[in-house]
């Protein structure tokens, strides 16, 4: 029971704190006057909703408006309605597999580059992550240290990642120095198309793999040890134990990891942009960079076209996100 004696919190607190509390009370009292006691829930929710609206809903709305209006003006009311013209321009192709036959060839180059990047990066990274997680889950020396080593790059800012690797991969960088020690020819890691793509994939894997290793490691640790002991008693060869026990039991985690990695890879931008600037040529031009350059960086700024492209990319991400949500729910049910 609450006693009738009035021991308000204000009496206990010192004066400045009391003033602050009273100041906060003013809008709360005002709101309760309007919404009533049950409506006070919304008082606590509104700040969050405002932030969400400001940083998500409003930009989304602006983005949609841009995508159906033309011109280089930034103020929405100055822009003229063009309907689906931007989308048509982006999607207009004689042969969608040949970017040169497309009206907006750079968009298609970026799209195909992104697809190529996503498949290469995700598949290599997942295999690498699984192997790393298996090793880190085993009995190895200094296990905690190695786990930290693999997770460390995840904590770095993408720009820092890009710069570090640029230093190491440039013509006078440490990689070529090592090659030089072995009397091998220097390689133009960042200026030759194939190497540059490989470098982008490699650096991006280096930067992100630790996160996925961590998730997979958690999944591996959730597999009871005695299953492996039962398998050992059953005379199961290690490879068969991996395919028949580890992999099926890790599968739910693995699927989530794959979809998360896909979502991240589709949005590839910062570290690769810092690393190669999208080059050489257009060999490392990806969708996000295309959008950024069309919208802000090129001489012929075209925010409408950039917005349309970003909505196309968003729809890909929505599909992947829904898949991820579905998978998570399926996994929790299992």
């Amino acid at each position, binding site marked *: 029971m609450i006693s009738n004696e009035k021991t308000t919190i204000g009496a206990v607190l010192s004066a400045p704190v009391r003033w602050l509390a009273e100041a906060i009370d003013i809008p709360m009292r005002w709101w309760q006057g309007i919404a009533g006691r049950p409506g006070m829930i919304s008082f606590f929710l509104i700040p969050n909703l405002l932030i969400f609206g400001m940083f998500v809903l409003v930009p989304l709305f602006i983005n949609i408006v841009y995508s159906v209006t033309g011109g280089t003006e930034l103020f929405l009311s100055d822009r003229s309605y063009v309907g689906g013209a931007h989308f048509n321009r982006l999607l207009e192709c004689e042969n969608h597999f040949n970017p040169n036959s497309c009206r907006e060839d750079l968009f298609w180059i970026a799209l195909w580059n992104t697809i190529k990047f996503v498949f290469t990066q995700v598949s290599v990274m997942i295999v690498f992550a699984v192997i790393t997680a298996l090793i880190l889950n085993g009995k190895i020396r200094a296990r905690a240290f190695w786990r930290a080593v693999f997770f460390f790059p995840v904590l770095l800012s993408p720009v820092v990642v890009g710069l570090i690797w640029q230093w190491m991969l440039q013509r006078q960088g440490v990689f070529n120095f090592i090659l030089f020690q072995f009397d091998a020819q220097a390689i133009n890691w960042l200026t030759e198309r194939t190497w540059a793509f490989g470098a982008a994939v490699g650096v991006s894997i280096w930067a992100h793999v630790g996160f996925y290793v961590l998730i997979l490691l958690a999944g591996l640790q959730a597999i009871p040890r005695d299953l492996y002991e039962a398998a050992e008693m*059953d005379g199961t060869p290690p490879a068969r134990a991996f395919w028949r026990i580890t992999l099926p039991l890790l599968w739910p985690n693995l699927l989530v990891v794959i979809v998360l990695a896909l979502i991240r890879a589709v949005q590839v931008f910062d570290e690769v942009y810092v690393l190669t600037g999208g080059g050489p040529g257009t060999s490392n031009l990806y969708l996000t960079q295309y959008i950024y350059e069309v919208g802000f960086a090129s001489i012929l700024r075209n925010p409408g076209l950039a917005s349309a492209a970003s909505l196309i990319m968003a729809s890909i991400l929505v599909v992947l996100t829904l898949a991820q949500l579905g998978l998570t729910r399926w996994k929790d049910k299992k």
Partner: protein
Amino acid sequence: MGRIRLESLRKSYGQVEVLKDINLEIEEGELVVFVGPSGCGKSTLLRQISGLDRPTSGNIFINENDATNVSAADRGLAMVFQSYALYPHMTVRQNLAFGLQNAKMPKAEMDERISAAVEMLEIGPLLKRRPGQLSGGQRQRVAIGRAIVRDPTAFLLDEPLSNLDAELRVSMRAELSALHARLGATMIYVTHDQVEAMTLADRIVVLRAGKIEQVAPPITLFEKPVNKFVAGFIGAPNMNFLTLDDVQPVLGNVGVPAGATMTGIRPQHLSPAETGLDMTVTLVEALGTETVIHGVLGSGATILVTVPGHVKTSKGEHMTLNVDPAHLHFFDADELRVEAA
């Protein structure tokens, strides 16, 4: 065939010696139970035998062959785990078949073995289910089935019933006993439930702190415990340990063996009488079939008595107790059993 012999087996984890010089011979077809308090090394000993773990020193012989360095799979033993360790993503049938597939057994033979085990354990209707869709008792059966299909030299069972409720435990215990009789296979069974040990075992191995205290058939263990530890561990409620002075009134003309400093009397062997030990009752537990009476002697020593049926007494009352001298145990200063010459 299923003889297992352990020779001066030792196991240390770092500085800690968990098994200290274990010597044991298990005959073919025998059901041997390892009992002992928690942490005494029962599971560790079983793991050395299974091959999942290797001893620090000593040897393991299976059917007279040195198996100390043979891999777990090649020892021909099957293990039933406390947690069952069924593969959760496989159906019951796949669980049973997994080990046989590893051995690349022809399908016809595999089917035959599986259906034999399925029939024996009556798990036919469960074959298509996954472990998650089974009750504890059903999982237990499947786990045993997985061991049976391998037709092992010996079965190793680590507290297989401890995850079941009391009622199921009693019925599974009886089934295991029947299964052992039917298969005629060597079984090593770990438990810390002494009722399980007493009811199942051909011989019981009592372990304490990594050492074997006594190996004997259940009744021998009950009637002739080699030392105070075994005497106190086997039998419920625990044996009363009293000084010679305490029991002077009932010793009468019983010859006290030379060197004895302490007597042990099981609560069941004390009974109300005209003359004997004078006890003040402190607590009465009426269980229906028997009554457990707690009391103190004149010297202040506590004592437990169980009397069949219902006995009318209550706290503060006095009782006089007598004991059949044949049921008196004597221990010397080193807590070892001493008997009248």
